[in-house]
């Protein structure tokens, strides 16, 4: 795709700028759809119907109506808030989540930036979200937002370790950080997918990665920052209207990013489960998106099933359960890979 645009425009800077907007074509409609889907899934799990009226068929345009409402809201910035940081924070949070899309291959033919340290880049750039959160909490000039933001930051930072270690296990098996390469190594039928390799280590790595990524995106059972029934509403207490919508958009963008990574690392990414059947550049995108959506569904399923962990229990799970297990997994995979050599 890059080559096509370069041929047409002959201006590298312009081409790279345009390429940066391409994942938005997926992310923004996805976020609109995901909010609707979440409401529908939660409704049916709770024996009710969810949105039914907006737009006719099962309320499909409910999210669009909500966005239109949010756009019309008055932009209120607390008087004592730090204006520059307050305005900047949601953009940083979004940028941190969105930047990860650069290195995720949507198909054999499309990847934003095919860098050979793709995974390393993804893990590092998504830490930008923490800066944005702390900025949001601090700039709100509300001690409860600050408390919520600090807890959020602590949660995300501590769960980055199991994420990185689980990814490390996959990298050891694949021998590369490049996500396209990892995809190519899982081509063939579905038993080539990494989730079935080096059993049970990579399966355990999937579990560790999935649970840790739930904490990264603040989903139940790790959604203390968003808990309405706790004392405070967390870092986004003081945000309203479109800024709040942007924070929510970045949460869904982040959700898809981690689901995409999970499906790429463990479930073959854009590879078809049937080998060469139903494969190809466009089919590849379909499989990739379908696998990503399956993980999103599981995240939503968990949200509506489980209660919330208390913040100290959350830290316990991160540090005392996931990290030891991920160390064991890394050791196990390491020995296995060495033994085969």
């Amino acid at each position: 795709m890059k080559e096509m645009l370069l041929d047409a425009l002959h201006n590298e800077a312009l081409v790279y700028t345009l390429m940066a907007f391409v994942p938005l074509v997926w992310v923004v409609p996805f976020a609109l759809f995901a909010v609707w889907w979440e409401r529908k899934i939660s409704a049916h799990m709770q024996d009710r119907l969810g949105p039914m009226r907006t737009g006719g068929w099962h309320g499909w345009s409910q999210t669009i109506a909500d966005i239109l409402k949010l756009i019309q809201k008055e932009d209120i910035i607390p008087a004592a808030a730090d204006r520059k940081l307050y305005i900047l924070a949601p953009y940083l949070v979004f940028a941190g989540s969105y930047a990860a899309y650069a290195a995720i291959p949507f198909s054999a033919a499309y990847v934003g930036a095919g860098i050979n340290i793709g995974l390393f880049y993804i893990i590092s750039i998504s830490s930008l979200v923490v800066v944005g959160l702390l900025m949001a909490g601090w700039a709100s000039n509300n001690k409860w937002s600050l408390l919520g933001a600090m807890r959020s930051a602590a949660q995300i930072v501590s769960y980055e370790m199991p994420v990185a270690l689980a990814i490390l296990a996959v990298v050891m098996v694949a021998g590369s950080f490049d996500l396209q390469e990892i995809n190519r190594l899982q081509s063939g039928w579905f038993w080539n997918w990494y989730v079935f390799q080096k059993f049970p280590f990579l399966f355990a790595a999937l579990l560790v990665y999935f649970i840790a990524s739930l904490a990264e995106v603040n989903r139940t059972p790790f959604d203390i920052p968003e808990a309405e029934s706790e004392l405070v509403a967390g870092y986004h207490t003081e945000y309203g209207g479109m800024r709040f919508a942007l924070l929510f958009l970045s949460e869904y963008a982040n959700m898809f990013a981690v689901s995409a990574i999970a499906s790429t690392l463990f479930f073959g990414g854009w590879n078809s489960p049937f080998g060469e059947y139903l494969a190809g550049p466009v089919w590849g995108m379909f499989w990739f998106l379908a696998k990503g959506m399956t993980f999103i569904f599981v995240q939503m399923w968990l949200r509506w099933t489980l209660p919330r962990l208390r913040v100290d229990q959350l830290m316990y799970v991160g540090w005392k359960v996931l990290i030891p297990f991920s160390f064991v997994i890394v050791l196990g995979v390491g020995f296995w890979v060495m033994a085969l050599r």
Partner: protein
Amino acid sequence: MEEMMTQPPAAPQAPTTVPGFGRALKTEEMVISMGPQHPSTHGVLRLELVVDGEVVVDVIPHIGYLHRCFEKHCEHMTNYQQVIPYADRMDYVAAMSNEFGFVVAAEKLLKIKVPERVEYIRVIMAEFSRIVSHLIAIGTYGMDIGAFTPFLYCMRDRERVLDIFEETCGARLLYNYMWIGGLSHDVQANFAGKVKDFCRYFRPQIKELNDLLSYNKIFIKRTANVGVLPADVALNYGVSGPVLRGSGVQWDLRKNDPYSVYDRLDFEIPVGKGLKGTVGDCWDRYMVRVHEMEQSVNIIEQAVEKLPAGDVAAAIPKRIRPEAGDVYVRTETPKGELGYYIVSDGTASPFRIKVKSPCFVNLSALPAMSRGAMIADIVAILGSIDIVLGEVDR
């Protein structure tokens, strides 16, 4: 508005030096208000928390936001029958239980004996009321802890009971059904069938609730060993109902001081045993409610089998004019021991009705349960006491 101070909050006790490290960091206790408008306070309740960091040092409940002068209103009612719609509205979640307490007290004052049919129907309605109240308690408790789905399941089951209520007396929430001397309507012809259908439907729902919420490890971690109320402290505070039974004390007025026909029905009293943590923690109180729902279904099934024929309006007096005197009667509502103290001066209008509200007393034990807990636990502890502000404030 009353301020309930069990003891004055301790003055900040920051040490000035820490051995081996020199001068200590100056800490200060903070006072936070979990204000009247809060998603988890189950009504308009203000909790003043004195916290040291994340740990709660003291909790001071401020109540009275829902005080509606129930007791004063009763003095101006032209007759005793008019009190019943007001009594409904105290614990509006389990209105039948409030009515039950009042009519038993008034009948004792008037020395009326009601027909057997009335007694059995009243017991059935009171036990439905217990189920309905516990469903709300469990559902909202799950929601406080973060599990949104069990709330909807509890509401769905509650609607089925409310349908039975609506068919019988015409209202879903506030019934005016139990009258002094009898009932306002006899039950419909298909009552027994509907009740048995519900009992058959409901037992598997309790099992599903247990699968989804009660034995969920995360829920257990949030509620076990949290808010422990030892039995002696519970007795000293005078708490009653599931809060007392959760602390291991086997005390239920339906067995220990029976009224109506409870002495002819066979059921057990669930008691907290500390299965998942300590005796008297939040999980115990919660599980007592779940088990009580099962026992209520047993009671209802027995009562509907034994339901005799009769006229429910036979003993309703034409004119209610008790002799001068007073009476105190206590009944076991879903929240605990509800007591009515009625003073009559010989006229048709009550001279004074004083209500001993179980939620009021149970709420007073909140500080004892929550010293040393974390802020996030306060929500769990408050939910496990199961208060309805309408009854706390009357």
